[in-house]
């Protein structure tokens, strides 16, 4: 399904999170997303192909231009790019010819939101058991975790802002829960 390159402004798309959300939440535009699996021997070549450093540590985001890769495990990345970026599958196929890799399109599987504000970490910690202190979860850290009963990928983009990747059917739940939690917190 690597050939999905329909314009993200396509009126025929239905947004996974159509409703109103908390004032501290910004819904992300449609993105191209891939789950990329790379064995050790493919890291360098894949990095050269996509312009991303796949040797960076686990649970860290690496960004190059509009492309970001979140390393979620020893051999697993979530690659995020603008919906218009159609070059990733071809680039990898060319750069990794003869080498092992796995690329699965999950652009529509999940959706992204940005939560920002001085209480963003506390709002997430209301139902997420991770230590979100800046020392333990610094800017650029990303991990798969839980948000109450939803599975999310949490990426800290600045001291007071987070990007959350949520499976689409769980997004209304996460958004509603964040709004409910947000009632306790001023901006």
């Amino acid at each position, binding site marked *: *399904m690597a*050939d*999905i390159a*329909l314009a993200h402004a*396509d009126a*025929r*798309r*239905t*947004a*996974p999170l159509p409703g109103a959300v908390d004032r501290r939440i910004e819904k992300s535009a*449609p993105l191209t997303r891939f*789950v990329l*699996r790379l*064995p050790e021997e493919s890291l360098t070549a894949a990095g050269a192909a996509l312009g991303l450093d796949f040797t960076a540590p686990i649970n860290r985001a690496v960004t190059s231009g509009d492309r970001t890769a979140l390393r979620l495990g020893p051999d697993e990345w979530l690659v995020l790019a603008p919906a218009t970026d159609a070059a990733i599958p071809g680039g990898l196929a060319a750069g990794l010819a003869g080498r*092992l890799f*796995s*690329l*699965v*399109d*999950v*652009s*529509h*599987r*999940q959706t992204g939101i940005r939560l920002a504000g001085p209480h963003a970490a*506390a709002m997430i*910690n*209301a*139902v*997420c*058991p*991770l*230590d979100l*202190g800046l020392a*333990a979860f610094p800017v650029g850290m990303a991990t798969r975790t839980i948000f*109450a*009963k*939803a599975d999310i990928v949490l990426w800290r983009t600045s001291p007071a802002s987070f990007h959350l990747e949520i*499976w*689409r*059917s*769980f997004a*209304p*739940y996460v958004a*509603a*829960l964040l709004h*409910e*939690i947000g*009632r*306790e917190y001023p901006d």
Partner: protein
Amino acid sequence: MTQTYRLATGGLIDRSRTVPFTFDGKAMTGHAGDTLASALLANGVHLVGRSFKYHRPRGIVSAGAEEPNALVGVGRDEGHYTPNLRATQVELYHGLRAESQNRMPSLERDVGSITDRLWRFFPAGFYYKTFMWPKGAWTKFFEPRIRAIAGLGRSPAAPDAARYAQIYAHCDVLVIGAGPAGLSAALTAAETGARVIICDEQAQFGGALLAEPGKSAWLAEQRARLAGFANITMLPRTIAFGYFPHNMIGLAQDLTDHQGEASDDAPRGRLWQVRARQVITATGAIERPLVFPDNDRPGIMLADAARTYVERYAVKPGNRAVVFTAHDDAYRAAVSLHRAGVAIAAIVDLRESPAGPGLDAARTAGLPVRTHATIIGTEGNLRVAAVSVATIGETKSERIACDLVLMSGGFTPSVHLFSQSRGKLAFDPALDAFIPGTPAEPTIAAGAAAGCQSLEAAIASGRAAGLSATGQAVAAPVAETGAAGFLGEVPHGRDPASVRAFVDFQNDVTAKDITLALSEGFRSIEHVKRYTTTGMATDQGKTSNMNALGIVSKSLGVAIPSIGTTTFRMPYTPIPFGYFAGYARGELVEPVRETPIHAWAAEHGAVFEDVSLWKRARYFPRGAETMHDAVARECAAVRAGVGLFDASTLGKIEITGPDAAEFLNRMYVNAWTKLKPGRLRYGILLREDGFIIDDGVVGRIADDRFHVTTTTGGAARVLNMMEDYLQTEFTDLKVWLTSTTEQYAVIAVQGPRARAVIAPLVEDADISAAAMPHMSVVECRVAGVPARLFRVSFTGELGFEINVPADYGRAVWEAVAQAGQAHGIVPYGTETMHVLRAEKGYIIVGQETDGTATPDDVGLTWAIGKAKPDFVGKRALARTALASQTDRKQLVGLLTADPAEVLEEGAHLVADPAQAVPMTMLGHVTSSYWSAALNRSIALAMVRNGRARIGQTLHVPLPGRSVAVTLTDPVFYDPEGARLDG
């Protein structure tokens, strides 16, 4: 009522703020800074409740969390009502409404107190001994009545109107308790830069020092220092109620409870789940009552509590007091009350020759002290009126009138949390108390909780804990001599069978009850506890456990360490359920998963059903159609024309890598190696025990890429199982798994007209019967959207399933619906899907199977790749124990004699409906529907040796009748499968 017992000066209350409240409807006032208990005492009210079993009048005993008697219901209405709150912990607020419990009609005149006069008939364990006959009388007669009489608070009659918050937090050091030890520990730890959380159940930090006016300057200084540390989080009004594994501590923080929950917009409280590198329990100590005859009358309270009411709340707990003690601390209380204007009628000391500064101060103040003396009885109904004092060993007693009795048997360190952490307790004979011994978690006890007696020792102990918790060297502890006090029943020289000396006030357990248990042969403290219920009330024996141990120890002549202590369990004090529910209420109790086509279905009148967390369209009624009518119409449309079905919830897993086919060979029963790209196969997944766990259609997209589908409910389970095998068993395989369940919307188009409907929408593929046979897949465009188009059928008709990226799901669905209009396309739901597949005998995992069905049981032996060396479950199927069974339940069809009779799913099948109960059950109905296509009912069933019984008649026993059924092949419709090609 005016606050006649309020002192003119002193205390931490704000006299400029008068706070009105009611107790049992009576209007009273207190001041800001009061608890409900201190405000009641200021109004001269001691009587606040009736006891659990005997309905005896009870008064305020303590000034803290250990309170056994003063349990009240608080709240302005049922939605904000909380029962069983300790009046000693309830902060007073404007308009507080409190009511006493376990009394009828009133506290003063309570009909239940008849049990008090009959007390001899209600010994420990009476419910095991009496009321056991005649048979059935216990459950029908005695138990309901006993339950009505016994008990404490009532449940609120309306749902909790409050909101509750929750948060997870991490810290280097969590300090529980903000008394002198806790404050010192927190400050010492914070100096290193450590992240510190300090919590305390009270509104203000200070602990016992809040009742020490002489230490207010020191306390103010410590509080100011705390506020100066940005790395300290201070949580007042926060009870640490539970110590969970790996230093996870549960805290319940009162946010608006203490203000009466004025607005439901703000959460009432917040549950904290704190993961701490180090925990310091600076939880203080609890004073022990003395166990003497009739020691439970209102006006009899703990000595240090009485002192606290004087010093902290500026309340005189009475006018004329007798102090009964086995510990020096009570002398401090006596002097304090004396200065406040309470006449001290006598200080009765159990000890033969007490000495020390406390005693000296009492003598200097001219207070009458009687040593080697005891109280052998008390008088007074709703309030203590007199005590009888005797020299130990003598029978002659002196009656002393009083309205207040202070008692002190010494102090018990609060080791509840330490014990919850599985730390071993150690008995300190000098203290006659258990103190924290070997810890099981990174936890340190400090202050009185560790057995410290003096303020200096507590502060030093807190500081040492703070140093130790942050990995620093610790100086030697401050040496001090312990003061034990007294455990057990005091000597009183009276017939033990005729007096009641209460050990556990809340559960009405007396010393006699415990000796009775021992005389009946109970030895283990755990058994004595359960037989007598001592320590089993909501206070978990905070004031009673050590005295119970003392009685057991003396009666058996066994030292306390040899008896051991009972286990402390969370919560430390009862916590409202709402704290645990948190945000998970109403719409947020579970995620509600909706497909991209959900909104269309809702707009078209679909009735939804819950399938795991998903909402699925069950049927689409038109006008006034019933479900039966709608489903019959939808079924007919699919069989005769074409139907449209949202299958998006099906689980999907993308399996990639050069060894993908081999991985599937090992996981599924089927053979995959020869499956060509572009073809589909129906796969069956077993557990290791050979039983079916899931099924689904698998498509080979490329040599190294499979599109696997699972059941809706099995999606996560199957992926987890596969990942587990991949990572632990099949590490040699180069395979990766990715969930794509939500990547695709799946639009099923089923029926003889299916190809005609979608053909105009398909680009880049030839979907003719010749080019695209049943069970094939092609990547193409549908309605301009990239798609994986499956030709597959779960209806028995010609069918396609269009997988498109989810954002386009609705647009493609609408395009298909539009294109189908000319063909009379009908949207159908899961109910119709179930009927259509049942007509074809297709199983649903979890409906026909129940976790104990093999492939052969459900007629799927054909799917097993017999040449394969192995697959998950293969060995189990071959084991003699399974393979040799000859009467396993097998899938069959059922036809009722009366075609209009639709059987109940779950009904049993028997050979002889006249057989006496219990009947020999041969099987059960798994699916049962009205079949529009066959114009009669059909059912699937799992029946013992069912395939051999095909053609036979069995019976379904129902209330008052039975239904005859004929066993048939499970494929009712188009057994040749001719319709798959349209």
